[in-house]
């Protein structure tokens, strides 16, 4: 082999290896310096995606040197590994969807939430929101999230036609709920549809129920890891979940089907009630336009909690602290919440938290009612999976599912939570 051939061979081999090594090591350090504004979220559904794409087009038209890149991920994927992966990737999002509560605090602690205080007080976002809303979006005296919507995580939806045919009225107390279950079960109708395979669907509903029994402070301290679950009040709260099982209140398949299949039971009139969040409105309008449905808040429980509490969470958008385009991101969020776009979101069955939303005339009455319920609630309970540590939430959800499915006694279930959490 000649020296030239040796050198050529070595060079090709070294270049190939280097290329592979570089491609393998290309994990990024956060923000990128190009002119692309990257926005990430769980998929908000077709109607809202159209609005988002329209807002992106408006922004690009007003800022010809900026390209807006939308990233809509599967909801569950985004909530778990999707967002952390994106934030640690080479082209991390400049703006990303997040839930207020423990998750937001974690993002701030990890250095992924920019300080937006100036932007919301004197910058482009100033005046678009009621100042009070920023209280729950402030971490270490810095506003770190721009709100977008307030989700009521659970209410009891009911089929007005089934209730009318059965001569029933929506339950407002625990005893009424059990009596309603008995009446519907006797007629061969599933009283409450639930798709709890992934544990959060009935989990949010039943967690709210337990908060009404143990009280909001006990609920919060247990989920924060400050107190144990294995206490008499938690056993009592879980006893009410057992009552639901004993009265055949939920579909037998509750722990075997997912939230979509659970909703289908309600949409198809096989179930009279469905315990799920405010997002059901746009979902039902899309998939069951003929369905006559309305909601009541969780019926009052015998217990120490505020019986008018609402389980809900504020969601919104965070600007990545590692982004080099924080000012551009703030301008985008201002555009997102201007009058025109707020009305467009209302048309897509989402009611933004911007002040101008209240002037909208096309808000679905149920959505408007839910927002009003959340705003006037004497106590707001955070959903376990977005408001607290996910592992603790999962342990609570799993225990609730076991009692709902008749697999555990209330005593064993609450003891099991503490055991699981060590």
């Amino acid at each position, binding site marked *: 082999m000649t020296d030239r051939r040796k050198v050529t061979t070595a060079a090709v081999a*070294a270049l190939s290896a280097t290329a*592979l090594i570089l491609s393998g090591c290309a994990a990024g350090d956060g923000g990128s310096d190009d002119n692309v504004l990257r926005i990430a979220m769980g998929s908000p559904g077709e109607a809202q995606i159209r609005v988002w794409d329209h807002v992106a087009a408006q922004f690009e038209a007003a800022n010809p040197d900026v390209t807006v890149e939308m990233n809509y991920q599967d909801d569950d994927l985004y909530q778990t590994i999707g967002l952390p992966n994106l934030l640690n990737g080479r082209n991390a999002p400049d703006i990303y969807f997040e839930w207020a509560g423990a998750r937001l605090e974690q993002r701030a602690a990890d250095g992924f939430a920019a300080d937006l205080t100036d932007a919301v007080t004197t910058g482009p976002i100033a005046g678009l929101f009621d100042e009070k809303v920023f209280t729950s979006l402030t971490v270490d005296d810095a506003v770190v999230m721009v709100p977008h919507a307030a989700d009521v995580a659970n209410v009891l939806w009911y089929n007005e036609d089934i209730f009318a045919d059965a001569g029933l009225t929506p339950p407002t107390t625990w005893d009424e709920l059990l009596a309603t279950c008995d009446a519907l079960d006797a007629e061969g109708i599933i009283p409450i549809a639930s798709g709890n395979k992934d544990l959060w669907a009935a989990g949010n509903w039943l967690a709210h129920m337990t908060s009404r029994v143990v009280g909001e402070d006990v609920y919060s301290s247990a989920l924060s890891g400050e107190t144990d679950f294995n206490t008499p009040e938690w056993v009592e709260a879980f006893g009410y979940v057992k009552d639901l099982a004993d009265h055949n209140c939920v579909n037998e398949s509750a*722990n*075997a089907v997912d939230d979509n299949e659970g909703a289908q039971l309600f949409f198809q009139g096989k179930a009279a009630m469905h315990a799920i969040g405010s997002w059901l409105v746009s979902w039902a309008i899309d998939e069951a336009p003929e369905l006559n449905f309305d909601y009541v808040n969780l019926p009052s429980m015998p217990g120490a909690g505020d019986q008018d509490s609402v389980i809900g969470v504020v969601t919104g958008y965070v600007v990545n602290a590692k982004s080099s385009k924080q000012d551009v991101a703030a301008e985008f969020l201002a555009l997102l919440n201007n009058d025109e776009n707020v009305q467009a979101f209302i048309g897509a069955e989402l009611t933004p938290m911007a002040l101008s939303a209240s002037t909208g005339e096309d808000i679905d009455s149920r959505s408007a009612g839910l927002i009003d319920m959340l705003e006037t609630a004497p106590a707001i309970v955070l959903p376990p999976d977005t408001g607290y540590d*996910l592992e603790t939430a*999962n342990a609570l959800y799993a225990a609730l599912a076991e009692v709902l*499915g008749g697999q555990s006694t209330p005593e064993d279930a609450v003891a099991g939570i503490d055991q699981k959490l060590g």
Partner: protein
Amino acid sequence: MKPNRRVTPYLFLVPTMAVFGFAVLFPVIMTFAYSFTEWNGYGTMVFVGIDNYIKAANDTLFRDSFVHVLIYIAATILLEVVVGLVLAGLVSVRRRGSLWFRVAIFTPVMLPMVVVAVLWAFVYNNDFGLLNAALANFGLEDLQRVWLGDPATALLAVSVVSGWVYAGFYMTIFYAAFSQVPTEVIEAARLDGAGEWQLFRRIKVPMIGNAITVALLLCITGGFQGFDLFYVMTNGGPYGATEIPTTYLVKSVFTFGNVGYGSAMAVVLTAVVVALGLVFTRVNREKPENVSA
């Protein structure tokens, strides 16, 4: 002058070794390293020694997940390997016209596993599903179950789906092996008065011992790699009854952000699979030489 080519082959190996290094070796080493840390995947990494391994040893759900996967493997050996062997025996008896039968049995292998899982989740659905509806039509309401929601039936239900998919795969392997059995041996056995069942049991099956061994090894190691069916159909539920090591460690890492603990579980799982593979190979080597086709 004789050219010096001692270095050249190694230079050409560099790209391949780089791919292997980054796709296999590097992740394995890093997973092992992560297993000694507490880390959420992006925050501060804290060295915790063997704490994750102690936690895994004391984790009831992790221990149970191995029991579940062993039950699953036992079921799939029956539903995939044994059924595949029987199907191969059937189609090898009458080769004329068996093509369509073989294609029909093999078709599920070509379907993406996620599609299969979604399809069968609908079949098993308690409220809209085909299975319970069929049982009701035949007056067998007593047999109706919430198949994927009952801890007593969920694991078996998933195993049946796995059998439905892979029985065709093993049938193909065994059918090919049967084709290699010398026809003079078959003819001699026929002349001695052997029927089809005796031919199958005493001639064909013993002569494809190596193929059966490979199939068993594939089934066992494939069982430990099982994930997609479980993830889509039950997500480890109900009440952890179908939690297997892969679903549990994926939840730990990707849902709860326990990269360190998940890595420790991955290392334990790898060690178990490698150990089983070695034992299987050793046992097989110590057996008398199989009559090979």
